């Protein structure tokens, strides 16, 4: 087999992409944890991890080593095999879901998958098995309660998330991830502007689905200690954590694909704004420069050097992102531009979405379980349905007369239906407030006295 044949082997690119995901993802998840801790520290007027590496940059690696070296405890009365395998289910499902996510036009494991979005949603949802089984196998009340909460929550919010996705799919007219992004490029409008309510619903539902605050009931540490993870320690616990953060990336990716234009640059269709192509490189240059500015201020020589290396790395990335833009059209470098810049914008949008997750987590108290259910079923789901209907109407209004539509301009049809949907949401809030606290009757208990 000569080199050419290997290069044209159809499974080559998917396998490389899969390897990259499997190898790099744990590291990425670790660094998301670090970023989260840093963001949290910033919001809470403190510094966060500062010891391992400059500004705690090596903290994830230290954490990983610590978790790997810890004793792997399996409780005596646990169901050994399920306890052993449950975290694997969660991680596998989460990673498998990533295989249909196009990180830019070039990086995609399953290119021809014409059910892409459904695949991500469906396979990602399988992770619930890992949670429920892990909670059950631990043979502890806290774990079981956490697992059941988690299952109920995920199933409830998946309906709303699904409805929000349906709204975007109506606009796209296809299930394929790449085709959805192409459609947004053609329209020149990201779907978030056509369906802002849908995006909002998906945002809320995705937070609930990934068990993040303010919906982090399953692992509400002040109530259930750590929910389904209570009995887990060491590496298995780390696997659950990896699954959780991978799931966050997955839902952020779905939102990016459906609502935020995937790997598209902002205003990708406007030639006058092509200077935005330099933005990624400029950003990297800025970060690199800041690293060099901070390097002399590090306390230890090693850390000074490390900071310099990070800065150089950023400069390298800047060069990588800048060269394709500068290179003459038609050259190999220029051909790399869509792939590189697509990946950059995609990851940037995912990162922004994750930042919103963190921001909300550190701002809000936690919902109670029944409130969460009420929010999901009595507010989010009806609004999501109204949203689907609204978008369907808007699509019909906007469709050219030749195709059986009314041919209304875009800026009339979509804002109008969005306003109507918001009206529905407002009505639901109003109704909900009127009948709000379903008073918990203490008298109900009296018919069966619990006390001797």
């Amino acid at each position, binding site marked *: 087999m000569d080199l050419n044949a290997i290069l044209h082997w159809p499974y080559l690119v998917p396998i490389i992409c899969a390897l990259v995901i499997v190898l790099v993802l744990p590291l990425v998840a670790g660094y998301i944890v670090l970023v989260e801790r840093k963001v*949290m520290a910033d*919001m*809470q*007027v*403190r510094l966060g991890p500062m010891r391992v590496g400059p500004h705690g940059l090596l903290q994830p690696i230290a954490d990983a080593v610590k978790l790997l070296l810890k004793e792997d405890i399996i409780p005596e009365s646990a169901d050994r095999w399920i306890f052993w395998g449950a975290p694997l289910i969660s991680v596998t499902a989460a990673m498998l879901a990533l295989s249909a996510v196009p990180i830019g036009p070039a990086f995609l494991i399953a290119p021809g998958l014409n059910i892409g979005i459904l695949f991500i949603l469906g396979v990602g949802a399988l992770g619930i098995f890992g949670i429920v089984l892990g909670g059950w196998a631990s043979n502890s*009340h806290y774990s079981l*309660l956490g697992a059941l909460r988690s299952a109920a929550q995920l199933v409830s919010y998946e309906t709303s998330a699904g409805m929000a996705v349906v709204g975007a799919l109506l606009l796209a007219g296809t299930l394929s991830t790449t085709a959805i992004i192409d459609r947004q490029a053609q329209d020149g409008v990201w779907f978030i502007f056509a369906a802002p309510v849908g995006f909002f619903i998906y945002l809320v539902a995705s937070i609930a689905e990934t068990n993040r*605050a*303010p919906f*982090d*009931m399953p692992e*509400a*540490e*002040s*109530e*259930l*200690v750590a929910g389904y993870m209570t009995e887990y320690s060491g590496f298995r616990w780390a696997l659950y954590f990896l699954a959780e953060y991978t799931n966050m990336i997955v839902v952020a990716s779905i939102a990016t694909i459906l609502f935020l234009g995937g790997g598209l640059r902002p205003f990708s269709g406007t030639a006058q704004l092509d200077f935005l192509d330099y933005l990624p490189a400029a950003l990297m240059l800025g970060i690199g420069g800041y690293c060099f500015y901070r390097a002399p201020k590090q306390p230890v020589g090693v850390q000074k050097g490390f900071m310099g290396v990070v800065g150089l790395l950023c400069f390298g990335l800047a060069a990588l992102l800048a060269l394709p833009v500068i290179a003459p059209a038609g050259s190999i470098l220029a051909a790399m531009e869509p792939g590189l810049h697509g990946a950059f914008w995609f990851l940037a949008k995912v990162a922004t979405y994750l930042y919103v997750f963190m921001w909300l*987590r*550190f*701002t*809000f*108290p*936690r*919902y*109670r*379980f*029944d*409130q969460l259910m009420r929010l999901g079923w009595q507010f989010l789901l009806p609004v999501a349905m109204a949203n689907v209907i609204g978008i369907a109407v808007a699509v019909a209004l906007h469709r050219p007369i030749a195709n059986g539509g009314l041919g209304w301009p875009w800026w009339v049809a979509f804002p109008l239906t969005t306003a109507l949907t918001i009206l529905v949401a407002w009505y639901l809030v109003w109704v909900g407030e009127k009948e709000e*606290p379903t*008073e*918990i*009757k*203490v*008298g*109900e*208990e*009296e018919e*069966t006295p*619990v*006390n*001797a």
Partner: protein
Amino acid sequence: MGSTYKPGSGVETTVLGADEIILNMGPQHPSTHGVLRVKLKLDGEKVKGSECVIGYLHRGVEKIAEHRTYTQFAPYVDRMDYIAAVSNGLGYCEAVEKLLGAEAPPRARVIRTILTELGRIASHLFWLGTHALDIGALTPLFYCLREREEILKIFENYCGARLTTHAFRIGGLQYEAYDAFEKDVERFCNDFDRRVDEYETLLTENRIWVGRTKGIGVISAKDAIAMGVTGPVLRASGVEWDLRKAMPYAAYDQFEFSIPTGKNGDTYDRYLVRMEEMRQSRNICLQAIEKIPTGPILGKVGKVLKPPPGEVYHGIEAPKGELGYYIVSDGTTQPYRVRIRPPSLINLEALDQMVRGHLVADVVAIIGTLDIVLGEVDR
């Protein structure tokens, strides 16, 4: 809600219905504020009964008192409610002074008032932070600790200790106020108003916060009085009862302040009451530093304390409620008996009634809102 309190109610753990389980919260649990153990009888997630199991932190403080002189025992009381150690010391010192028939000089009394009110603010801040953390808001804790840190710095400058201060002495003060004391307190108070507003922007009108606290753990004024509940918990039920006004001690009769009360007696009202109390405490501090009299800081009580035989009860308004000391003297240098009425313990007795019919998540909120300190509950 009618009065459903029955004395001696607990959880019958042997007879369980088909869907009922017993959940043990604690003693090792993130949100029981120490080593409280609550046995919950659950129907699904609904609480059908609860029973507090206490004593994990019992140190026999009252017994220790019988083998120490009056002066020696003073540091021990700081270890009860270690979040507001100053109040404990104040109560004890005043009780012994009452027993001796002595009185602290005016300067000492005003400084005592300032420190105690700062301690109250610190205690409430700690309560707010942990309470919010229990309900899931991570960030207020750090804001609260930031301000508490300022107070602890003042304590440290004053007496060298931050937590268990032992700041007072029977008959007055142990230390003279340091040079910048007034300035530090004033600076803190001026800042603090804005800080309380900051916490309120985070929580007061937050829909989730309101949803988690309104209507939760309701206790009527009648029940509260029947169970001897005191402090902010009582006031949130609408009873305007504050020992600082009702039976003024230290220098409280010299200052203007109001007693915030609630209407519904739920967790949200208790939150509002405590927030307002922090503002009032700040007002008291500001008024007090204006008129700290000059003079001695220690009254004439003698080196060896030998109170005449007799008994005394003295209660003060600690941050958590009425903190009472009942001391029996047999005329020797050591008390014959010291009985402490810890507010946390009495307030905790209301827990069972407050949690019934609520969910597990509310139990956490209610334990938080009672503002218990296990060091004080168990002594």
